[in-house]
């Protein structure tokens, strides 16, 4: 029996996952957009999409249909072949980067031994799509957007890469699966061992995905839509898809490397085993809320859809509960890591993306020179200090036999002191420049 399961897992699961990624990722991106609009509406004292489906639940599908039906305009002066091809590069890069990610122990297409390196390398290729698209549009706005994008990605890729190096030193491997196993062995997620590294990665990943407050390449109020200005219809949607795919990718990297991947919080502590029931409870609460809202929907079809959604969520909650209730050792009980791992991974990725949205609706936008200064004068030096700090902690632990509990707090404090000094020195320099500028 187990042999059969192993066969299925080794051959068919990757294939199914691959199909799922190509077929479902656009849908997921659509629903992230819906989530973003709902979060934005919540923060801005309004409702957001409410008309297409109950609570706007079918809005992404309507949007996708609209974008597919729209006329695909290629400007007269554009370099047509490149203009046509550029969005595909971005999308392909984003989708490829998903493949080595392990969404729970069951759902992974390829467990590459250079997994993280592969993701970082492939997703960096997406910039070609942006630069080529901006250049081939033959428009000043697009060109400026593409230039900004190129400069920004190159600078922040460095900081993000260095932040990842810190985590990789702790894990000692590039395989996504083994990184999570390493965190399981350590007993803490790497975010607690390298908080500064996590912070750098958060900032750099926002910049890398062109999200506010670093959304300069597509800064709406300045460059209209940046590199996408001349795009319309489905080609524009492809850029959008690429952007949201990249968000999923960076959120997954952060989850894998810093937030314990598919591990439950306090996975190693039996006292917290009640958290295993949290997924089910959450699902039941959300499903129950759907049913509570059913009578308040104005139209019969919306009532039906919302009831179906609620039922689906409750069934999912029941599926998550089933392994817990099954007798231990049975086949069903052994499904627990796979199902629950997937849940925790998705929850963490969702929280990370929520953080992105929260920042986007709170902060104004950086100016280009400020962005570059932040990247080169603060984040990159800090990420190097962070790598040295983690190195020091590992040396203290391995060579001198210090315990984790003394080595890591010490180096974290040192790194934070360096961060404080960098920030202070940067501010001082800025003030001096301002004074010099006035004089």
């Amino acid at each position, binding site marked *: 029996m187990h042999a059969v399961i192993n066969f299925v897992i080794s051959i068919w699961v990757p294939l199914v996952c691959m199909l799922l990624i190509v077929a479902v990722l656009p849908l997921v991106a659509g629903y992230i957009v819906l989530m973003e609009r709902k979060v934005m509406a919540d923060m801005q004292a309004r409702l957001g999409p409410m008309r297409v489906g109950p609570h706007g639940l079918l809005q992404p599908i309507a949007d996708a249909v609209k974008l597919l039906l729209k006329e695909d305009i290629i400007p007269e002066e554009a370099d047509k072949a490149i203009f046509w091809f550029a969005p595909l590069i971005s999308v392909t890069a984003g989708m490829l980067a998903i493949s080595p990610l392990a969404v729970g122990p069951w759902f992974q297409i390829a467990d590459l031994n250079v997994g993280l390196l592969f993701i970082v390398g492939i997703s960096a290729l997406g910039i070609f799509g942006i630069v080529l698209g901006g250049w081939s549009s033959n428009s000043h706005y697009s060109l400026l957007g593409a230039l900004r994008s190129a400069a920004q990605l190159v600078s922040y890729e460095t900081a993000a890469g260095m932040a990842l190096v810190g985590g990789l030193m702790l894990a000692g491997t590039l395989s996504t699966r083994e990184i999570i196993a390493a965190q399981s062995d350590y007993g803490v997620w790497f975010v607690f061992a390298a908080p500064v590294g996590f912070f750098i990665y958060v900032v750099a990943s926002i910049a890398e995905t062109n999200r506010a*407050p670093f*959304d300069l390449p597509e800064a709406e*109020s*300045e460059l209209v839509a940046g590199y996408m200005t001349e795009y319309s219809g489905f080609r524009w949607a492809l850029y959008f898809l690429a952007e949201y795919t990249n968000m999923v990718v960076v959120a997954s990297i952060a989850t894998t490397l810093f937030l314990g991947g598919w591990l439950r919080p306090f996975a190693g502590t039996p006292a917290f085993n009640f958290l295993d029931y949290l997924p089910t409870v959450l699902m039941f609460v959300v499903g129950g809320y759907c049913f509570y809202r059913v009578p308040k929907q104005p139209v019969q079809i919306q009532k039906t859809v919302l009831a179906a959604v609620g039922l689906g969520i409750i069934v999912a909650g029941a599926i998550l509960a089933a392994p817990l209730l099954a007798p231990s050792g049975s086949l069903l009980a052994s499904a627990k890591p796979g199902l629950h791992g997937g849940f925790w991974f998705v929850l963490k990725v969702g929280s990370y993306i929520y953080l992105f949205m929260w920042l986007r609706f709170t902060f*104004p936008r950086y100016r*280009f020179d400020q962005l570059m200064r932040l990247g080169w004068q603060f984040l990159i030096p800090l990420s190097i200090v962070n790598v040295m700090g983690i190195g020091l902690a590992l040396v203290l632990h391995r060579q001198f036999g210090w315990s984790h509990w003394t080595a890591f707090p010490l180096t974290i404090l040192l790194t934070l002191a360096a961060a404080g000094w960098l920030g202070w020195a940067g501010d001082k320099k800025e003030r001096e420049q301002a004074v010099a500028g006035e004089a």
Partner: protein
Amino acid sequence: MADQRIPFATHAESTVLGADEIILNMGPQHPSTHGVLRVKLRLDGEKVIGSECVIGYLHRGVEKIAEHRSYTQFAPYVDRMDYVAAVSNGLGYCEAVEKLMGVEAPLRARVIRTLLTELQRIASHLFWLGTHALDIGALTPLFYCLREREEILKIFEKYCGARLTTHAFRIGGLQYEAYDELEKDVERFCQPFDKRVDEYESLLTENRIWVGRTKGIGILTAKEAIDYAASGPVIRASGVKWDIRKAMPYAAYDLYKFEIPVGKNGDTYDRYIVRLEEMRQSRLICLQAIENIPTGPILGKVGKVLKPPPGEVYHAIEAPKGELGYYIVSDGTTQPYRVRIRPPSLINLEAFDKMIRGHLVADVVAIIGTLDIVLGEVDR
């Protein structure tokens, strides 16, 4: 490209583009030029080395129209100039004609005029704050600002039936008697309002990004501001204490106590602080006004057909955006011989080129925003 010569009006000294310069055409269709302003930017990379504002896309010939309308008929047209602050426009026009005719509105009318105009100033500044923050990339303040502005527009709607182009006043006094709960509505709006302004401040004032984007951007010194004849918050942020409400009181402003906030550096940040403080001061004026609205008639002694004696008059008020002046020449008939309007937006916009030189493309929208222009008023 080498021998393609592009003339550029603002750079008289060199009308030919350098090798690494480009011309960026911003507008008239652009998300953040506040209407149909068109700005031609001469860029070196992202640095602005010259600019030219092209206006007139919203020109409707308001001044010419005035010559073919009677004094009363023209009043609604002025609402369409600065459509974000229609009440202030109406106040300026009505008072100018009253001055020309030598009549004065009764005290009750003047107090209600002051009250509504100050509400309008708050509404205009709220709209400015929301869009300015949006230009700089903060998406959320816009909705909070519009939420508060909505309250004011509801008061206008209750008072005169219109929200935007109100035509609230009438030459000689008021068109409508105040409705019963006017004081209550204004108080309900004003009481929590300073807390709300604090809320906007908590989102922006101390925010590192906001400070970085606004401090030292678009500096206008006091002398330059005077030379450009700037007015309103733009000149006050440069440290010049010039406010027509205090300098040449009109309506009922001499009855109320309020401060004139002034800035120091004349940069975008100071203009932001000055406008926020002005909202607080306007709130205080409103609260003082509703304390005691005198009773009495709302219309002075004006005939059904207005026939001012021949002569000319210049009357300026402190509109939310600056000095709004009406110069009216009468030839003794029922129609004005000539109406000339001094729109604060246009005069403030003149300083744009001075302010933008040497800054980056991103600062263009910050400076357009901080000037608080409305194209309906610039182009008339």
